[in-house]
């Protein structure tokens, strides 16, 4: 009797569980379908479009192979994409260094049991809450160099006021590209080993990009600060104590104990900020636009310009695909690794 009831009970429970299983799948199905179509399906469509001749308002899916890609890697006069790649590399490297160094220093300072820590933390973090468009609009005025007629403005004017007038310069209006000159010793050496291409503006640093880096760092360095501060707080005091007992001074403790322990955080920061930097778009639109001789142009902006202003859809799709691949190279190993460590836990 008892066994029988128990049997009925489990049977009903089993039945219940399988209905629950179906309900659970119904709950998540819309999202799975949406992601399948709107992420993967769309990426597939964009990838496909990049091999077609759809370069007008009327869709045309004639396959033309790699021609849209070949066109991107052309040199003068259509070398805009090469300049964009240069700009993205420069921007990403400078932005990452600035955010990590500044974020780390601020975190170390805040970790010294300072008064008003909460207020300082909020001051360093609040720019994260606002839009890149607002940041761009404000920094465009701050870094507006002014004109000869009206005199300096913005930060240049501030420099003049505090007697540092020699620091003023053209900011994002400066078309200078720092690069190795072919006629210099290094340039001639590169030419002698067949690398004369490196001694060209394509491998240079557009100084106008510094303005974008300053604005982006202003906005995002609070993120690295918060990550590093959380990391520092997680390091047990005993470890520092032990190092001190062993005779290490404060700087040695940071170099040999703390910085190595913060390495995983640095890596996540590099990946998160790196992918933001590769995708940077809003800030460029609102602050500088493509800049003098495309000195502040980036692939995301070029794609938008090509596709939605120039109606060259296939060409835009090719830029988007390259952009996606570059982000995926950074993100996919990170995702796989995160999921694997989680599965091990």
């Amino acid at each position, binding site marked *: 009797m008892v066994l029988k009831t128990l049997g009925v009970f489990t049977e009903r429970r089993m039945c219940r569980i399988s209905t629950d299983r179906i309900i659970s799948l119904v709950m998540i199905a819309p999202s799975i379908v949406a992601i399948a179509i709107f992420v993967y399906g769309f990426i597939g469509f*964009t990838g496909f479009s990049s091999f077609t001749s759809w370069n007008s308002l009327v869709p045309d899916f004639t396959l033309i192979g790699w021609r849209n890609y070949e066109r991107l890697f052309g040199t003068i006069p259509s070398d805009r994409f090469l300049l964009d790649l240069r700009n993205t590399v420069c921007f990403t490297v400078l932005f990452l260094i600035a955010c990590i160094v500044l974020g780390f220093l601020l975190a170390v300072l805040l970790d010294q049991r300072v008064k008003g820590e909460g207020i300082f933390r909020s001051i360093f973090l609040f720019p994260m*809450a606002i839009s890149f468009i607002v940041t761009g609009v*404000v920094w465009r005025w701050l870094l507006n160099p002014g004109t000869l007629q009206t005199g300096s403005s913005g930060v240049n*004017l*501030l420099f003049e006021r505090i007697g540092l007038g020699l620091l003023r310069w053209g900011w994002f209006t400066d078309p200078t590209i720092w690069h190795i000159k072919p006629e210099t010793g290094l340039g001639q050496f590169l030419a002698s080993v067949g690398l004369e291409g490196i001694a060209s503006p394509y491998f240079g640093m557009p100084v106008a990009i510094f303005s974008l880096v300053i604005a982006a760092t202003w906005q995002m360095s609070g993120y690295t600060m918060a990550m590093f501060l959380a990391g520092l707080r997680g390091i047990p005091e005993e470890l520092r104590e032990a190092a001190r007992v062993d005779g290490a001074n404060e700087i040695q403790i940071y170099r040999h104990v703390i910085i190595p322990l913060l390495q995983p955080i640095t890596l996540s920061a590099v990946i998160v900020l790196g992918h933001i930097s590769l995708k940077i778009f809003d800030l460029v639109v609102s602050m500088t636009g493509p800049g003098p001789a495309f000195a502040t142009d980036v692939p995301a902006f070029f794609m938008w310009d090509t596709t939605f202003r120039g109606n060259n859809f296939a060409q835009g799709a090719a830029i988007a695909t390259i952009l996606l691949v570059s982000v995926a190279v950074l993100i996919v190993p990170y995702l796989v690794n995160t999921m694997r460590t989680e599965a091990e836990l």
Partner: protein
Amino acid sequence: MIAQTQTRRPIRVSRILIYAALFVAAAFYLLPVYVLFITGMKSFQEVNLSRMWDLPSGFHFDSYLTAWFGSEKEGITGLAGNFMNSIYLAIPATLFSAVLGSLNGYVLAKWKFRGSNVLFPLMLFGMFIPYQSILIPLVQVLKNMSLYGSIQGLIFVHVVYGIPITTLIFRNYFAEIPTELIEAAKIDGAGILGIYRHILFPISMPGFVVVMIWQFQSIWNDFLFAVIVTSRPTVQPMTVALNNMAGSYVVQWNVQMAGALIAALPTLLIFIFLGRYFMRGLLAGSLKG
């Protein structure tokens, strides 16, 4: 006694250096805020690039009024309508996102099925992609769905592309709730929906706050989707309108600054009052929430 003062002194100097460095850093972060505030407060006579850093002569709200209501005489369209568009966009999109994310997170944390461990990272990938890689078909599909160019269309887009992050935050939140609780409820005869309604939903309010703050601020601040999906100025959200205003030669820069402050205000207020939850969303974005 002497030894004590000697060891104390260098510590004091380093304290001063720490505070000095913190104040210099704070000045860098607050510099744009200072300019935003003083410029917005200036009267039109005082607006002069060479007096950019000077304090205003008094409290003038003309710039804010012009930025908000516009000025027919100067041909400036105010941001009031666009501000409301952003509200009508961000609030429903945030609510839909949160509900969807919580259902997904619940299933992925407590009703794992075969393949869910593969599905989850595939979903997450969607929050890292550069949206340029989906914009071309997105515009076509929205046109076919008659959603193109409308706030509804933009709500739809934000809900769809918000799935990964909202699912992630809720999944991590629900994963911390002991499975024994769910098992006990199952033995008591509760089904999947009953468990959600009576157990998980009531205790997931902090999760909802984190997700809603995160979604509200990213939707409010979004520019790319907004500029692609809405082309008519009357339906454009705040960020697009502000960018247009800043790119216009008729608009004085004090009005632009006032507009920028208005655009930043909602998310800034959330940050000031609910900063703790904002931080959690931020850290979840790096997958380590």
